[in-house]
């Protein structure tokens, strides 16, 4: 299961998702695409299911879209904004 870290707060400002990691005090801004990926991840809780929805929504070459998705999710993990939990 993928979920947002408990200390991370998310809010929509000017069409951009703004995240605050309350533990570190660091802010992150996601563009529209990043916001959608995060929404899918949180809603689905499973990376593969989120990727499927992302591919359905974005009318772009699947290989490139998949690469972008995986790169973005790895960045979310790197920044410790999302966590992987055993069900």
């Amino acid at each position, binding site marked *: 299961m993928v979920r947002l870290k408990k200390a991370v*707060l998310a*809010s*929509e*400002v*000017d*069409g*951009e998702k*703004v995240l*605050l990691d*309350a533990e570190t*005090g660091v*802010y*992150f*801004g996601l563009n529209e695409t990043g916001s959608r990926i995060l929404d899918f991840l949180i809603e689905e809780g499973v990376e593969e299911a989120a990727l499927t929805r992302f591919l359905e929504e974005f009318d772009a070459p699947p290989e490139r879209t998949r690469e972008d998705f995986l790169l973005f999710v790895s960045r979310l993990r790197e920044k410790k904004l999302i966590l992987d939990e055993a069900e």
Partner: protein
Amino acid sequence: MIRMYAYCAFGMDIRSVFPLTVLERPEGYASEWMVEISEESVALIPDLPWKIGRISYGSGLQWIQVEVPWAARYRIEDDSRILVEPVPGVAPGQVTVYLEGLVLPIMLRHHPLLVFHGSAVRNEGGAIVFLGTQGSGKSTAAAVATGFGYRVLCDDIVPISASAMVLPGIPRLKLLPDAYGQIMGVPDPRAFDGVDKYRADLGVELSPSKIGAVVILESSGIGALHLELLLGREKIKGLLPHLCSIEGIDDPKGQFSRLTGYLGKTPVFKAVRPVEGWSAQTNVEQILAFIEGGQKSWCD
């Protein structure tokens, strides 16, 4: 018979046994938020957990206590009473300085407000909040704006409600001598605040006003005034350093939620002025014209 003084500040109707420097309560002023400030014995609470320099403080469910060792012990009860036990022999002005500058702003925490360090003015179009670091010209900008039909809502502390209304704070500007001289003329010794500024009463406003815009004032080595609309993360990053945040009392998560919720739709501008060779009059006029024109970026 103890004399009671009547004041208004931060939307409160204040009755105080201590004379304050905030505005005296005008005839007909109405507020549902009544606050009584009285001189009483306040029990010592050893080891208050939080510190600002040598000032210590702590809070419980219905109270906040602040210990200023050289001035007084203050206890806020609910959102309606402040008990003050002055240090024996302390000058009354010392008790007042912390009452106005620390205790009353802390009392605002009883309400779900966003509280900024800044100044605010309003006209019929709404309120403009000026933010910036110390010396960035917030009070001066507010003073200059009064020359363009704006009235002063707040100086130093700016409270904003959930409905994005700027509440009247202390609508009495404090200006450094050079700014006072430029705007008001020769400084009047009676207006001296006892520290480093002069009080200036310029078009006082005591009614809450819907926020129209926030301007973050900065200076840099650039050659001319630069104005820019901040969006998304840049907006939140720009606003955050100017929030009055008190460790142990303010919850960062609550502040973030309020910041994005209350001001998410408010235009926030960054105004960068040159360090040297600038005129407050000209720059503020340009800033006001820019905001009123609803532009997104502009360079003189």
